């Protein structure tokens, strides 16, 4: 698989993301935000974490207007797979490729810790190696991860199985971490080819670092 990893001024998880996909046997290529096209024959675009444009105005609000995002939008509209991690999730919601928005955490803290997540739907190209109801342990590190969507939007998400993950305890029961609507940690679009999550699967690849659950998440793309 060939993976394009985007890089904006302020992105800081691009090398971890490359490392993760290369560890899984894929080739990766960094793509600068000023590029107007994506590399040919790619199988996945990853918008990695960080603080693009210093989080000025709103997290992800400036990055979404980068030249490369036009190419990403048409790639996604043609059915190409896109994954946004943390700041990447914020950029994809700002770009309108994913529903909802990410607000400041309710407690106003930057939350950085290992967090249990419950898999809500695995019937998609991303989480197909996970079981519905399974609990994964993945690090989170964000200040603006408080997922908001209005009632009508939430009903659509639920009905169409677009909720991917919820913050949970070790039994899979939802817990309040940052104030997200029903503890949502990740969602996908209606066509299930664009995925976004606040947790960092690329930081959970080695037992010595506390969890290997990220491998199973990212492996989903091989199978799909």
């Amino acid at each position: 698989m060939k993976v394009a990893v985007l890089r904006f001024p302020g992105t800081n998880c691009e090398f971890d993301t490359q490392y993760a996909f290369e560890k899984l046997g894929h080739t990766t290529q960094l793509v600068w935000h000023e590029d107007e096209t994506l590399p040919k024959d790619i199988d996945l675009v990853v918008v990695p974490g960080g603080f693009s444009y210093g989080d000025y105005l709103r997290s992800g609000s400036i990055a979404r207007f980068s030249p490369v995002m036009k190419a990403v939008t048409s790639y996604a509209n043609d059915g190409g797979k896109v994954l946004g991690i943390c700041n990447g999730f914020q950029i994809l919601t700002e770009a309108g490729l994913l529903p909802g928005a990410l607000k400041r955490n309710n407690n106003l803290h930057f939350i950085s810790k290992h967090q249990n997540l419950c898999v809500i739907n695995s019937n998609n190209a991303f989480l197909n190696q996970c079981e519905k109801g399974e609990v994964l342990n993945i690090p989170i590190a964000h200040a603006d991860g408080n997922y908001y969507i209005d009632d009508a939007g939430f009903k659509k998400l639920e009905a169409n199985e677009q909720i991917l993950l919820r913050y949970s305890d070790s039994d899979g029961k939802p817990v309040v971490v940052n104030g997200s609507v029903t503890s949502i940690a990740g969602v996908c679009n209606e066509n299930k080819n664009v995925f976004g999550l606040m947790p960092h699967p690329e930081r959970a690849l080695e037992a010595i670092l506390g969890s290997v659950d990220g491998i199973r998440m990212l492996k989903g793309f091989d199978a799909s």
Partner: protein
Amino acid sequence: MQAIVNVFLKEGVLDPQGKAAHHAIDSLGFTGVSDVRIGKQIIIQLDTDDKTKAEAEVKEMCETLLANTVIEDYTIEID
């Protein structure tokens, strides 16, 4: 011409910063404060003298960039 844009979280969307400031105001001993909301103000200098055109342009700036209308409302004052 100058445009002053105020952006606030929508009514019904919890404003954690406003809530924290409200708590701090209460703890300073001020009484009778029923709500505090925090937003941002964006001041834009425009070359045009055409108020209608300015309003239309600033509205487009708000809709595309300055506000995220999923969670935020905005007001525009032009003078």
